[in-house]
């Protein structure tokens, strides 16, 4: 036979039992070139650009899904950071833009559309400042629009002034939406990638072509199953190289499947759509077995968050990247392992038991692909404390030359240890405890923490 029956059954098992899927096919659309700044022109332009380019996205993805038997879980759209498109526009135009994105997403049958974003790592233009201030209103008025702000980079340092503003924005957004759920669509970044396909932080960078398809491949379940299978086969304890090798091989296969599917979607959409990048991120879902925490636990850490978790995460993330890079020359985006608290059943359990704490999570973000993701905070957390949590996270990214991000959800009325279910993909949130110390003076200093140096790295 051309393929060994084991190869065929392995593929089927990966899809049927181990949740191998293409997590997202995200179309990035360039929005530069809006002919006017008035709300009506902005609305029409954005609505037409999204619907004319992404109108067939869902159907094309469904065709490809059917052909290869691998599900494409999410079809989404990202656009040029709106602050660039709307610079110089009145406040009403920002709201019109958000509404246009929302309506276009409904029209295209897309659950999330991202790119209501600003890049302020060194300083905010008046348009960017207006965008940041409009976020609570935008998030309250929409259900599909995702917003992000890049607050820091390794070349510029941390814009602490904007960080302080975002602390206030998150707090206000939480109070304007039910259970603070609006904050699940708001991310702040250090070193934001311009080709990331994963919502909520996706955007279509200015260095990108007109229309691209970026693919997010996932499959923590497949990696977990591969490790478990090998454990049953080996009589002695597997060493770390062997573990790494198993993860690499699995990541290789997942990535190859992702690239094939991404390119097929591009071919079906036709020009000017181009293939962008593959983002190899292990993205967990609340589904049983589809968990990054479970992989870490399979390596021999009793619970994620225990001592040794950071080392295990390092082993995992590096092996995923190496396997993926071998499989494709178009790797980009975030690429690593996502560790959202609420979307991963193992993370939820460990948080409930008090093993996964904010401090341990922060340490893990020095290695994972993105950062503090879906972290619920008590409702009475002051904006300055939220800004300080963000600033810590940005510092890790800036100094390590990696992407870090924060998606924090202060839940009004909630106390540490409370459980809030946001439903669907967002999952169950356990409110984490924060330190009750006053840091408002530091945050109020504003200005910019200067960029780090590249030498003397100890």
């Amino acid at each position, binding site marked *: 036979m051309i393929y060994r029956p084991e190869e065929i059954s392995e593929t*089927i098992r990966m899809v049927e039992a181990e949740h191998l899927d293409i997590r997202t096919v995200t179309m990035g659309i360039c929005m530069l070139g809006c002919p006017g700044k008035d709300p009506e022109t902005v609305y*029409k332009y954005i609505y037409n650009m999204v619907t004319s380019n992404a109108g067939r996205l869902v159907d094309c993805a469904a*065709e490809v899904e059917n052909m290869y*038997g691998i599900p494409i879980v999410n079809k989404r759209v990202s656009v040029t950071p709106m602050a660039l498109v709307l610079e110089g526009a009145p406040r009403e135009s920002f709201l019109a833009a958000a509404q246009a994105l929302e309506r276009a997403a409904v029209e295209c049958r897309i659950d999330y559309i991202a790119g209501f974003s600003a890049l302020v790592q060194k300083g905010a233009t008046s348009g960017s400042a207006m965008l940041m201030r409009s976020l609570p209103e935008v998030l309250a008025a929409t259900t599909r629009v995702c917003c992000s702000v890049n607050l820091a980079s390794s070349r510029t340092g941390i814009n602490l002034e904007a960080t302080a503003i975002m602390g206030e924005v998150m707090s206000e957004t939480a109070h304007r939406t039910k259970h603070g759920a609006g904050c699940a669509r708001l991310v702040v970044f250090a070193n934001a990638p311009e080709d990331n396909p994963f919502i909520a932080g996706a955007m279509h960078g200015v260095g990108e072509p007109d229309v691209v398809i970026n693919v997010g491949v996932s499959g923590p379940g497949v990696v977990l199953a591969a490790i478990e299978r090998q454990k049953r086969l080996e009589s002695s304890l597997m060493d770390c190289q062997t573990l790494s090798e198993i993860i690499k091989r699995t990541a290789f*296969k997942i990535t190859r499947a992702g690239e094939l599917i991404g390119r097929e979607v591009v071919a079906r959409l036709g020009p000017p759509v181009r293939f962008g990048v593959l983002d190899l991120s292990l993205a967990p879902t609340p589904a049983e077995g589809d968990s990054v925490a479970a992989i870490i636990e399979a390596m021999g850490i009793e619970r994620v968050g225990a001592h040794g978790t950071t080392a295990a995460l390092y082993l995992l993330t590096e092996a995923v990247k190496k396997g993926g890079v071998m499989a494709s020359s178009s790797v980009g985006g975030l690429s690593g392992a996502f560790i959202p608290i609420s979307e991963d059943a193992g993370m939820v359990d460990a948080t409930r038991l008090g093993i996964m704490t904010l401090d341990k999570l922060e340490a893990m973000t020095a290695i994972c692909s993105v950062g503090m993701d879906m972290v619920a905070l008590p409702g009475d957390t002051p904006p300055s404390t939220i800004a300080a949590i963000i600033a810590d996270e940005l510092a890790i990214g800036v100094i390590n030359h990696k992407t870090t991000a924060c998606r924090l959800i202060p839940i009004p009325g909630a106390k540490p240890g409370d459980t809030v279910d946001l439903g669907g993909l967002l999952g169950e949130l356990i409110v984490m405890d924060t330190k009750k110390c006053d840091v408002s003076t530091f945050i109020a200093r504003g200005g910019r923490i200067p960029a780090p140096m590249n030498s003397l790295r100890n």
Partner: protein
Amino acid sequence: MIPFQEVAVGKRIVTEKDVEGLASRGVIEVDSGMIVTPLAREFAMRQGIRLVYAEGSVPSAESVPGDPGSGSRGPNDDRLRKVIAEEVVRALGSSSDAGRRFIPSYSPLAEDDAAQKIAAHRAGEPNRAIVVATGRNQPGVAAALTSAISDCGTDIQDISQTIVSNFFSMIFVVNLDTLKGGMNFKEFKASVEQAGRGVGAEIMVMHEAILKAMHRI
């Protein structure tokens, strides 16, 4: 009109001096009996004069500024001109809608060649499906599945079968090149799945490309 220079092989050399005289409405039609010098081409370009190469004519040794992607020999502005013309017509046609008229069409560079693009993308790739059937063994299972496959006009290239006690597992490699006219992959899949249901077999159909991508380098 300035006369052509005659050369020994009978080809005419078009030099910089000839360009203006030859141009008619901004275009020079270059036929197979003409050789245009590089300097003449450059001069023409500066003057906005377009050189149109007739069938069989070959531009002289140096490369012509053009579209390397399409392999076109001349400056490839025919397509661009067509797009611009269409855009102008569209803009004038919908001038009542101020916001919309600046919107580029669905895809400015698109031609109706999506099918070709997909074909080119797949060129050299095998077009085969893998059909996996599992279930409780009973008389007629293999017959039902093979006839469903052949009813679609497709050809079984390989079969592997295992029977463990009462259960069978069958893998078919099916060539899709001969798929019946008008039938696509989706319909093929549906009809095999339906045949499987008739005999209590679980059916999984996937395109071979995914296996190749995952298991072959």
